[in-house]
C-alpha cells in the first residue's frame, strides 16, 4: 500500500494513512482487474461471491445429477439417450403441438394476465376488487381440479357453458375443451395469475406522468397503452412470456387430461410418460428437460438482450413520481363489463363447479334433480381426515418460509444482475432460471440422491422440502425481482449513497421498499404454488413432514373428488384471506398509492 502511494506522487498528507486504513485501494500491480468501480466496496464483492455460491449450489447440484443421468448409460458417457428420446414415432407432430400449445396458452395467460393487471393497477375501472379476485383465484385451485372443472364447463356434450350456448342458439361460440384451442385456453386461464402478479408489480412502478404526456400528445387510451405503458414494462412482460412458454412446454396436467383423449399429443406428454411409465425412464426425461433447459437459456438470453438498456425502463424516478390511476374515460364501463364477464367465467364458474362438486357424493351435471343429493359429508370427511392438521401446518410453514427466502434471496441476486455493474452478473439470472426446466420429480430424485449422502441430517426433515421449494421457485422469484427492480431509477440509490448509506442501508431502506410490489407479488405466487407443489414433495416428505399437496393427491388418487373439491373450496377461501393480508401489509412498505 505504502509503495503504491509513495511512488512519484508528491501529495502525501496525513489523509493518506487514513485512506490506507479505509482499505479499498489496491496497489496498481497487485490485481489489475480487481478494482473496477467506485460503487463496489469490498463487502459487496464478498456478498456477491456468497450469493453466487448459494445459487450455484442450489441450482447446479441437481443439474449435474440431471445431466449425468441424461448423458450416461450403463456403460458410461453416451448420446444414445438423446437419439432414444427423439426417435420416438410422431416426434415432429408432437413438437409442433407442443409449441402451438405452449405459445397458445402463453398468449392467453399473457393477454388476460396483463390486461387484468393493467386495469387493476393503472386504471380507475370500477369493480377493481372483482378483477383482483379474478386474477388470483385460478392460481389457488389445484390444477387437476381446475382442469376437471373446465371439462365440466366446456366439454362438447356435458359442458355447462356449451349446453347454455346451444340453448340460446349461439352454437358457433362453442369451444371444445378437448381440442388444442380448448387446452390452450384452459391452461392459459389457469396460469394467468402468474402473469397477473408479475405485471401487477410492473404496472405499480409505472410513472403516470409518462402516460399523461402521451395523452396530452393526443394519443387515445389504447395507443397510450400500446406505445407507452407496455413498452415501459417490457422487461416484466417478456420475462412473463418466457416463463409462460417454458411452463407451457412442460405442463402436463392439461395436456394429459385434455390432450391425449383428443389425440393432441404434446412433447411433455412424453416426459410425463417417461416419468410415469414402468420402469421410469429418467434418462429420457433428463434429455427432455435438458432440451427444455437449452430452450430456457436461449429464451432468457433473448429477453436479456431486448432488455439490455435497463435505464430505459426505469420509471420510478426521484422527480415528480406520483402513482395515480389513469382515467379510462369512455373506456371505463366497456372494460369493466368485459372484466366482469371474465370474472364470471374464470372465477365464478369454476369455483361454482368446485362448490357444486364438493356438495355432491358424485359428480352430476347441475340440475334440479341433483339438488336432492346435496350433502355436506365431504366437508365432514375433510375435517375428519387424520394428519390434515399437520399437513396444513407443514405446508403453511414451508410456504411462508420458502416464499420469504426465495424473494429475499432473489432480490439480492436481482440487485447484482441489474445494478452492481459487475461483469458477468447477468449470468446469475441465467443460473437462477435453470430450475424452470427441471421437472419436480427429477429435482426430488436429485435431492434424495444428494442428501442421502450428506453428513447433515437434512434427509427426511422439512429442510429438504424447503430446499426443494426454494430451488424450484428461484426462477419465478428472480423474474419478479428483476422486473420490479429494473424499474427503479438508479439515482434513488445514488442519492442514498450520497447520504452516507452503506450498501446494506441502501438495499434495505431504499431498494427493497421500492421493489415491494414485486416482492409481495412474487411472495404471494410462491406461497400459493408451494402449497400445491406435489411432484417433488411426494418423493421427499415423510410421516412427520406431510404436506397438504400430498393429501390432495391422495384424495385424487382415491377418487374422493368430492372431498378434494371441498379442500379446494377451503383453500380458495383461506389463501384469498392470506393474499389479502399480504397485500395490506405490502402496501405499507412501498410507494404509497394516491
Amino acid at each position: 500500500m505504502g509503495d503504491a502511494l509513495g511512488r512519484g506522487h508528491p501529495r502525501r498528507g496525513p489523509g493518506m494513512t487514513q485512506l490506507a486504513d479505509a482499505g479499498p485501494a489496491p496497489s496498481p500491480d497487485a490485481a489489475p482487474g480487481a478494482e473496477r468501480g467506485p460503487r463496489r466496496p469490498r463487502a459487496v464483492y464478498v456478498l456477491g461471491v456468497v450469493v453466487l455460491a448459494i445459487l450455484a449450489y442450489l441450482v447446479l447440484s441437481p443439474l449435474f445429477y440431471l445431466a449425468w443421468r441424461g448423458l450416461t448409460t450403463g456403460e458410461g458417457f453416451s448420446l444414445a439417450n438423446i437419439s432414444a428420446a427423439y426417435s420416438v414415432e410422431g416426434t415432429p407432430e408432437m413438437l409442433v403441438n407442443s409449441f402451438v400449445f405452449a405459445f397458445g396458452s402463453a398468449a392467453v395467460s399473457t393477454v388476460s394476465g396483463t390486461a387484468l393487471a393493467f386495469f387493476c393497477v393503472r386504471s380507475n375501472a370500477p369493480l377493481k376488487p372483482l378483477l383482483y379476485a379474478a386474477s388470483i383465484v385460478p392460481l389457488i385451485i389445484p390444477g387437476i381440479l381446475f382442469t376437471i372443472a373446465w371439462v365440466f364447463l366446456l366439454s362438447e356434450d356435458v359442458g355447462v357453458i356449451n349446453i347454455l350456448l346451444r340453448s340460446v342458439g349461439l352454437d358457433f361460440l362453442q369451444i371444445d375443451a378437448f381440442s388444442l384451442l380448448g387446452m390452450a385456453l384452459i391452461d392459459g386461464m389457469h396460469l394467468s395469475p402468474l402473469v397477473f402478479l408479475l405485471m401487477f408489480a410492473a404496472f405499480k412502478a409505472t410513472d403516470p406522468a409518462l402516460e399523461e404526456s402521451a395523452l396530452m400528445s393526443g394519443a387515445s387510451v389504447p395507443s397510450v397503452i400500446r406505445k407507452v405503458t407496455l413498452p415501459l414494462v417490457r422487461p416484466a412482460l417478456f420475462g412473463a412470456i418466457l416463463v409462460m412458454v417454458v411452463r407451457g412446454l412442460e405442463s402436463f396436467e392439461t395436456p394429459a387430461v385434455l390432450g391425449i383423449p383428443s389425440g393432441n399429443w404434446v412433447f411433455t406428454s412424453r416426459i410425463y410418460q417417461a416419468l410415469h411409465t414402468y420402469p421410469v425412464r429418467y434418462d429420457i426425461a433428463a434429455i427432455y428437460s435438458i432440451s427444455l433447459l437449452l430452450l430456457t437459456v436461449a429464451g432468457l438470453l433473448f429477453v436479456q438482450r431486448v432488455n439490455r438498456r435497463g435505464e430505459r425502463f426505469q420509471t420510478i424516478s426521484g422527480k415528480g413520481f406520483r402513482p395515480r390511476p389513469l382515467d379510462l374515460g369512455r373506456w371505463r364501463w366497456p372494460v369493466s363489463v368485459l372484466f366482469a364477464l371474465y370474472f364470471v367465467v374464470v372465477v365464478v364458474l369454476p369455483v361454482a363447479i368446485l362448490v357444486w362438486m364438493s356438495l355432491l357424493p358424485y359428480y352430476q351435471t347441475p340440475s334440479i334433480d341433483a339438488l336432492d343429493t346435496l350433502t355436506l359429508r365431504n366437508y365432514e370427511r375433510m375435517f375428519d381426515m387424520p394428519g390434515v392438521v399437520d399437513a396444513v401446518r407443514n405446508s403453511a410453514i414451508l410456504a411462508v418460509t420458502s416464499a420469504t427466502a426465495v424473494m429475499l434471496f432473489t432480490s439480492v441476486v436481482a440487485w447484482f444482475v441489474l445494478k452492481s455493474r459487475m461483469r458477468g452478473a447477468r449470468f446469475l439470472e441465467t443460473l437462477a432460471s435453470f430450475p424452470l426446466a427441471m421437472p419436480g420429480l427429477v429435482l426430488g430424485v436429485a435431492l434424495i440422491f444428494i442428501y442421502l449422502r450428506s453428513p447433515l441430517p437434512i434427509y427426511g426433515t422439512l429442510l429438504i422440502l424447503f430446499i426443494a421449494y426454494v430451488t424450484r421457485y428461484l426462477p419465478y422469484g428472480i423474474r419478479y425481482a428483476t422486473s420490479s427492480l429494473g424499474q427503479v431509477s438508479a439515482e434513488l440509490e445514488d442519492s442514498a449513497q450520497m447520504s452516507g448509506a452503506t450498501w446494506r442501508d441502501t438495499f434495505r431502506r431504499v431498494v427493497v421498499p421500492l421493489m415491494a410490489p414485486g416482492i409481495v407479488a412474487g411472495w404471494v405466487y410462491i406461497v400459493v404454488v408451494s402449497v400445491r407443489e406435489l411432484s417433488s414433495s411426494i418423493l421427499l416428505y415423510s410421516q412427520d413432514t406431510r404436506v397438504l399437496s400430498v393429501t390432495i393427491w391422495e384424495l385424487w388418487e382415491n377418487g374422493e373428488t368430492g372431498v378434494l373439491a371441498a379442500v379446494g373450496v377451503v383453500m380458495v377461501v383461506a389463501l384469498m384471506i392470506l393474499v389479502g393480508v399480504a397485500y395490506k401489509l405490502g402496501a405499507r412498505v412501498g410507494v404509497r398509492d394516491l
Partner: protein
Amino acid sequence: MLQVDALCKAFKEETASKHDRVHAVDDVTFTVEEGQFFTLLGPSGCGKTTTLRCIAGLERPDTGEIVVDDHVLFSHDRRISIAANERNLGMVFQSYAIWPHMNVFDNVAFPLRVGKRRRTPKAEVTERVERALNVVELGHLAGRYATKLSGGQQQRLALARALVIEPKLLLLDEPLSNLDAKLRESLRFELKRLQREQGITTVYVTHDQSEALSMSNAVAVMKDGRISQLGDPFDIYLKPANPFVADFVGTTNFIDGVVREQTPDGWVVHTADGPLTVAATSGVGVGDECVVCVRPEHVEVLRDDSSTGGDNVLTGEVQTRLFVGEAMEYQVRLPNSQLQCRTPAAARLSSGKPVSLHLPPAHCTALPRPEARAGSR
C-alpha cells in the same frame, strides 16, 4: 379563447386527522384571449401546476368550469368532462415526463404518430420534428436516447415535443427553469414568435418574475390556490394590488407609516425615518396605517458627500453589497429600517459608507398594511 371559471381542486391529506384537505386550487377564475400569452406566477406550492393540470384534463376539478373556444371542456354543474387526449392541447410537464424508452427523435415525433395526427406523412413528420428540435437546439442529438440527456436537454426535449403539435392552446409548466439565460432568451423569443405567427394561445407557469413580466400579455399572481392579482405586466409590477404581489414580483422595500394628509403632489406618509411623499395609494386614505412601497431600482443612491436633506431623502449607511452582474445591490441601514437599492455595477460603494437615498415620489406607493406579511407556502 380560454375561460376558467370558479375552479376548485382539493387533495386529500393523509396525515393525522383523516379529513384534512389541501386546497390546491381555490376558486380560480380567469380568461385568456385568443393569441394571448398568459402567465401564472406564484410561489412554490401555490397551485400553478394543479391549475394547469385541470385545464389539461389530467386532474378532475372539484367544481368549476373550463371552456376553450366555446367548447366546454369541463363543467361540474353540467357534468361534462372531456378526456385529456381529446382536448387537443400541448403541454410541457414540470417533471418533463419524457419517455425513457424512446430516443430524442421518437419522443418528439410521437404526437404526430398517434391520435388524430396519426396520418401525418412521414416526410412531414421528419421535417416538423427536425424543425422543433432545431428550435430547442437539440437537432444534433436526435438519435440519442432520452435517458442520456443532461437535465437541460431533457427539458428542451419536453418543450420540443409540445411545440411540434402546434396546438391551439399551449400549457407550459416552467419549461425553461433548467436552462441558462442565453438559451432561455432564445427560446422565449421562439415562443413569442410562435404565439404571434400561429396565434397560439399560451398559458405559462413560471416562478421567474422577469420572464413573466417580459413575455406576458396578462399575468395572474397566485397565492395559496387563489389569484392574488390579475392584470397586465405593468400593472402587476408598478401597481401591485397588495403587499404580497409587490413583494413577490420583484423585490420591494416596505416602510411602515401612517397617511397624514393629501397634498397636490400626492399623499404625505409619516414613517419612523421621516415623512415621505407618495404619488399613489391603493386602498388607504388619510389616517390609515399603511406601508410605503418602493422598488430598489427606483431608489437613487446619493453619495453622502453630495447634497443632503431635501424631499424624500433618507440617510443611512451601506450594510452589505451584492454583485449581480449588470448591477450592484446594496442593503442600506436607516435609523429605523433597512432599504434595498440597486445601482449600475460601475458605481461601487463599500460597506459601512454613509449614503443618502432619494425616493422619487412617483415611484412610491402606499398600500394597506397586511396583517401577517409572511404568507405560508
